[in-house]
């Protein structure tokens, strides 16, 4: 202490620091604790995840989703542009033929195999920008951790949006008299009676039939 005060005395600019000397050194920790102490009266910033979940930003890049048209057909046409755009090579798509018996999306082609490797994905969203039919979008879900590498390769079943009320499960034919372009323009607003009849004939047990019938009936009334 005496050494340091001697040195302080030898250097005049040090004196200008404040109270100076021994008293200054003595009070320095108090100032530090002051910061701590004053923070005790500030609001707590700790987020209580996982008990309290703060919503992410609305356009947060979370888990992907493969969307559907209102009648239940998939929007994905298996064009692989998402896979092409992907800088991390995390997407694997294989297209296949839509046949009258096995129509998954409007048009000629649908994505038969669709996988996203979440262990490569960097959530950059380039795939979303590349998608020509807006089939692929990103949600806000981020709880993706898992114990295996295989389990974090999400397949089409995991990525495909669930059928909402009124949608008809695929495969089923397109709305009669429409083209893929009509679908894209939003001119198809729900399953039609012919589509429902087709599914009734091919898969009488399909759980989405009831909802689709209701939706078609409501629309007919309107």
């Amino acid at each position: 202490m005496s050494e340091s005060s001697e040195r302080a005395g030898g250097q005049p600019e040090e004196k200008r620091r404040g109270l100076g000397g021994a008293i200054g050194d003595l009070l320095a920790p108090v100032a530090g604790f002051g910061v701590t102490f004053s923070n005790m009266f500030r609001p707590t910033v700790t987020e209580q995840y996982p008990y309290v979940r703060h919503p992410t930003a609305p356009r947060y890049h979370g888990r992907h989703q493969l969307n559907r048209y209102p009648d239940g057909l998939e929007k994905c046409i298996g064009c692989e542009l998402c896979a092409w755009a992907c800088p991390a090579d995390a997407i694997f798509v294989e297209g296949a033929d839509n046949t009258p018996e096995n129509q998954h999306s409007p048009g000629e082609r649908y994505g038969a195999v669709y996988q996203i490797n979440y262990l490569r994905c960097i959530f950059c969203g380039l795939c979303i920008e590349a998608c020509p039919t807006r089939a692929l979008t990103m949600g806000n879900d981020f709880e993706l951790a898992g114990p295996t590498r295989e389990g974090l390769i999400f397949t089409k079943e995991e990525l495909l949006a669930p059928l909402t009320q009124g949608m008809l499960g695929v495969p089923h034919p397109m709305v009669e008299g429409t083209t893929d372009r009509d679908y894209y323009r939003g001119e198809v607003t729900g399953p039609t009676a012919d589509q429902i009849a087709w599914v009734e004939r091919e898969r009488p047990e399909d759980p989405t039939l009831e909802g689709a019938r209701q939706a078609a009936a409501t629309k007919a009334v309107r």
Partner: protein
Amino acid sequence: MTTTQPAPTGQVVPLVEVTIDGVRTEVPKGTLVIRAAEDIGIAIPRFCDHPLLKPAGACRQCLVEVATPDREGTLRTMPKPQASCTLEVSPGMVVSTQLTSEVADKAQHGVMEFLLINHPLDCPICDKGGECPLQNQAMAHGRATTRFVDVKRTYPKPLAISTQILLDRERCILCQRCTRFSDEIAGDPFIELQMRGARQQIGTFDSGVLGFAGDAPVGAAELDDSGRPFASYFSGNTIQICPVGALTSAAYRFRARPFDLVSVPSIAEHDACGAAIRIDHRRGVVLRRLAGDDPAVNEEWISDKDRFAFRWQVAADRLVAPLVRDGEDGSGPLVETSWADALDVAATLLAQRRGSLAALPGGRGTLEDALAWSAFTRVVLGTNDVDFRSRAYGGAEEADHLAARVAGSGLDVTYADLDGADVLLAGLEPEEEAATIFLRLRKGVLAARTHVTVLGPYLTRGSAKLRATLLPAAPGTEAEVLEATDTFGASDGDRPRIVLVGERLAAAPGGLTAAAALAERTGARLAWVPRRAGDRAAVEAGLLPILLPGGRPVADESARAEVAAAWGVTPPAAPGRDLAGILDALRAGELAGVVVGGVELEDLPDPAAALAALEAVRAAGGVVVSLEVRRSAITELADVVLPVAPPAEKAGTFLTWEGRPRAFAAVFDTAALGDAAVLGLLAEEIGTPLPDASMPAWRGQRVAAARLDAPAPPEPGPGQAVLATWRLLLDAGRGQDDEPHLAGTARRAVALMAESTARGLGLQGAAEVTVRGPRGSVTLPLVLAGVVDGVVWLPFSPRERAGAAALGAQSGDIVEVTA
């Protein structure tokens, strides 16, 4: 890049000076403007132009502004832009491309706009999207937005013009590359332009589209005997040269996008032609194969078999782990085991029986594999009992022929020689057995540089496309006919003569001798064309009982000494047994085991007898070790099965029929080992490491080819005929497994005979005939054709139904024919 009209050899072509975009250049007279521009690095956009096809000027995308000097020498600009792909250069011509001329640029923009009017906007789902010249050039030379507001012309799509080729007429820009290829190169003009104006479209000769009655085309198209529309062995090339996605492959449809694929150059493994291919794969799976560009071999064309048949390499019956017999005594069923265990078991079994073992290495391996087999047989097994010829024919005469005239002869007759020669084909049907030879011959024939003479029982459609002269010969009489022939060809000796003998000529006793004699008589060069990719390499490696590597005769002491000096081990001195001898010795118990490499029982002269021989050797405590890619009939008879890699998973070198080495790299880096690696490991395990068996060609005395006199030709009795048969390009071969789309383009299986033969056999008006051989009978539709009298031709093993293979008879055997 090859020019469209190569200069006739020996003539000096005058040079013409032209100016393109201000650059003065001199090109040979007759050069097209678009090529002259290419030479100085100016790219003019084009769709219909292809360097190997005749100019068409169909797409008009290559419009340029051209000025030529008039009589006084003043430059006069042509009133309209000209198509540079059909315009030949003239002295003093001044060409302005889109780079320097606003007129040309505007014209090209206009053409592009017209081309896109009816082109659908389905690039995201089009198989061509990403490698599409139209897409690329629309980006480079097109407008950013469309001015077209009306409804586009649409067609139902896709239209399957064969099981393999799908046509999407909406996307077609009518460049006619496909029709020109089919007509000019393949000779199968089954697709053609139809209709007029806006409704003009490519199509097969469909009576509905053309609007004429009856089901036969009125055009000049030849219908093949299948009656199928686009039944061409080369149809896949139209997909590759289509500048838009109008022609696509059913097998590859929607499987991948080009920007996802990794391309590896490789060599086709289905025949001995060594066609360059490009293998496109993605994430461990081969998705398609395309023709490579090799002017010296296949130019830019490959057969559909080379293009579409590749899934056999990953078929469900592919062996992935070594198999050994379960149980203490080795009599149980085959079970999977580790490599260490399998090598240990195989080494023990083989080492115990050293000295009484033989090898049947098959003819599908690379040069490296063949050399390893050769060294393994001589050094480890200690024998000369080795024969690669796992096929129904080929005895001592063929072995002598190969030793005397083929082994170590290097590159003699080449593809380039075939273009500009009088060629005699004996025992060879190039369209079916060597497609690349067929295309090269046809190129020469169409240019009137080549003349083809075919020795065979009838003028096949393939030969007709070669405008060939037929030397009619019933099977078994080939030697006689060749001996009676003094000359062939149409040029009186101005052109070089070439005799191409196919491996099938060995089925006719004396045939090879007679062919060699004819070649000597006429001053022709002789070349041997095998069917399998590895046959020539097997000959070079000495996989014959009388031959060591490089064409060294086993019987020659100095040759053996050379081998001993190179290998450090003296090869056995006694000539070994050939295929038939090995099978006989196995049956008789003279041999205690055999190492088999990828041999199909069905290929052997008598599959039942071969099966019995292998069963006999195992029953007598012998050993069968098999090196295979996929499970086969031999697998079930083996004590140890060692899986080997298919061509996609190993690197190596195929030798073409010419003797040209065709090296290729592995497509995938898998755990599978090639034959050479497996044999090396096995030899190490036995304790005799394999030497590097490659040796330079032998310069010393060759085996003297035995002169074999032709035996009396077969004489069919009443109700009988002589069988003629060969393998078709597309048949039941295991190399074409899992390819349903390809199988649909195969030729229909029919029995062919002359009308007189049919009358003699009492078969007038019969729709089907039954042919009976020693082991069975087949019934096939009867088609009357110009076959030699007394001969019935059957396909060897078509996929859809049984062929000659089921008869137990060979070409030249007598079979019974009934209605």
